[in-house]
């Protein structure tokens, strides 16, 4: 890989302002994504993954949220956190596309679908008025919508959830981005529709040699779609490595716990283990290793110090166990 990585996030910290002070939502997150790669960012709700996605595009909800100094988000070496509003607008949609979780409410209800796609195209590509409709049809067909002409003329409320999500994917791709972020893009859809959308994302990624940042709480989804996985807990990464390694030989107790709590027909009759306790809310993360209160293997050091990512047998994990040669 020559040159800087496509996306490099280093030590990202995002806090939200509340009456009782600043509450951290993302606390020292670092990931690297190369061009054409598919990275899964896996974590339960409340761990800060969606905030991460928004921060990449400079869409952190203001004035409540703000990115703390010292964070770095680089796109091919360019520091996005210091980019001006003009440049960010170019990036949004033009170099990084994003699909959100709620297809039912993410389309403007009073504009026709085709207009909303066309708008995204025109924002980034010099397509003339005459060529625009054709381009829109192309995009709609690419995302697997038959009868693109009718769909383009339709209003959002006339489409099903799955169709709307495809439209939103088309919008995200309209500017020909190099990176597509899918933030829980299938979580609000029916199971059968989920599979088709995931397939679509996979195909699109390969056809366009696009990088994919797949944000999800579902390890199974990440397993299918990604080259590498980064597990997130308490606002930062607790384990990362290539997908196979993370799934087969997880080094962090949290990852192991997540894997154990997935129902598996092969292990029928074996009791499903849930991770004791519940995910701490924003602002109430414990000191030291954020996972230690729920960890069956924690010891004194875990409560005192927060571990950095340490090299493990097949992956890297933020766990003191790796230093005690367990």
């Amino acid at each position, binding site marked *: 890989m020559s040159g800087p990585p496509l996306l490099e996030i280093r030590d990202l910290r995002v806090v939200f302002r509340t009456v009782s002070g600043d509450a951290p939502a993302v606390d020292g997150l670092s990931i690297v994504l190369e061009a054409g790669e598919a990275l899964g960012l896996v974590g339960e709700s409340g761990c800060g993954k969606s905030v991460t996605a928004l921060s990449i595009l400079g869409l952190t909800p203001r004035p409540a949220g703000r990115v703390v100094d010292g964070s770095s988000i680089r796109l091919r070496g360019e520091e996005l956190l210091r980019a001006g509003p003009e440049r960010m*607008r170019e990036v*949004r949609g033009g170099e990084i*596309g994003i699909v959100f979780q709620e297809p039912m409410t993410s*389309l403007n*209800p*009073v*504009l026709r679908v085709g207009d909303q796609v066309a708008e995204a195209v025109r924002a980034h590509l010099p397509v003339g008025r005459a060529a625009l409709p054709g381009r829109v049809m192309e995009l709609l067909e690419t995302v697997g919508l038959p009868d693109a002409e009718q769909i383009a003329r339709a209003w959002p409320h006339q489409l099903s959830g799955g169709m709307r999500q495809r439209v939103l994917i088309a919008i995200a791709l309209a500017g020909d981005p190099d990176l597509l972020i899918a933030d829980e893009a299938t979580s609000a859809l029916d199971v059968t529709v989920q599979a088709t959308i995931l397939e679509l994302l996979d195909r699109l990624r390969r056809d366009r040699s696009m990088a994919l940042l797949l944000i999800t709480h579902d390890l199974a989804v990440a397993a299918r779609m990604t080259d590498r996985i980064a597990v997130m807990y308490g606002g930062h990464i607790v384990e990362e490595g290539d997908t196979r390694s993370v799934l087969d030989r997880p080094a962090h107790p949290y990852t192991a716990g997540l894997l154990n709590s997935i129902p598996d027909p092969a292990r029928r009759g074996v009791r499903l283990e849930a991770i004791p306790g519940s995910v701490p809310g924003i602002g109430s993360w414990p000191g030291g290793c954020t996972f230690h209160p729920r960890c069956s293997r924690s010891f004194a050091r875990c409560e005192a110090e927060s571990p950095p990512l340490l090299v493990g047998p097949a992956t890297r994990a933020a766990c003191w166990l790796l230093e005690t040669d367990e």
Partner: protein
Amino acid sequence: MGLGRALVAGSGVETLIRYVGSRLLQAIPLLIGVVTLVFVILHLAPGDPTAIWFNPSIPPEVLERMRESMGLDRPLYEQYLHWLKSFLTGDFGYSYSQFRPVSEVIGDALPNTLLLGGVCLIVVFGIGMAVGAWQAVRRHSAADSMLTFVTLFLYSMPGFWLGLMLILAASTWLGWLGLPVSGMTSVDHSLLGPLDRISDIAGHLVLPTIALGLGSAAGVTRYVRGEMLEVLGQDYMRTARAKGLTERTVILRHALRNALLPVVSLLGLYLPLLFGGALVIEVVFSWPGMGRLMYDAVLARDYPLVLAASFLFAVLVIAGNLLADVLYALVDPRVRHA
């Protein structure tokens, strides 16, 4: 905007016509209800309801014969049917304080009220939408807080009092503006050329419009601000920004269009307020409209005129609501397919 497309685009037109048709059908029982209500009120009033139709100075024998000829000694339900028929056909009887058929009298006054109301409506909604949307975008700024207070103040003000204060101001320290404080036309109106006539009426419109509209404008502003704030928090706004559109496009094309839609339905709410307010404002400013007509009629105990005016006000509100519904269907695609 969506209007042209809506009218041309295929399936849109039929559903629109069907929608308008159903709304019209719904308005008919409402009209009948209105006439019935007026009838009921009349007959609940103390005294002989039939006597109200006649000038009390008429000698009793003539009265008796007139009563017979008008069918006022028939049973109640027959009277009601007769009443219903005459009201729905525009026959409101005779005004004995103006010595003309009521329909004529109202016909003269109605356009003036519509003029005042119409101009006021444009001002109210024009200001309201602009200021309200602007406030929402500039939320938490000093201007927003100040405007919030100002709109609250205006919204709590009696319209007629504002009118009186305006007259006071225009007659004293703002006298140099030369704003007329009463009537619709100047004394020499008929001698003026057509262009001057228009500006004459326009000048007379200024103060009454402000008095009538400022309170409602404040109300619309508050409402639009709320709607806009809600729209700004919607998911599709996030999508719009993620597309890389300019902030201006995001606000104008995505936010405003959604926020201003419900404002049309606000019209239905404000019409009765506007007409009721017009009544008092017309009295304050001696504007020759239906409101002042009704007021004079009450003082003169000219009941046919009072009841007819009451009915007509309701008709205006119903018609206005109908228009608002149609307008809403035109601009919001979701309504037509419901």
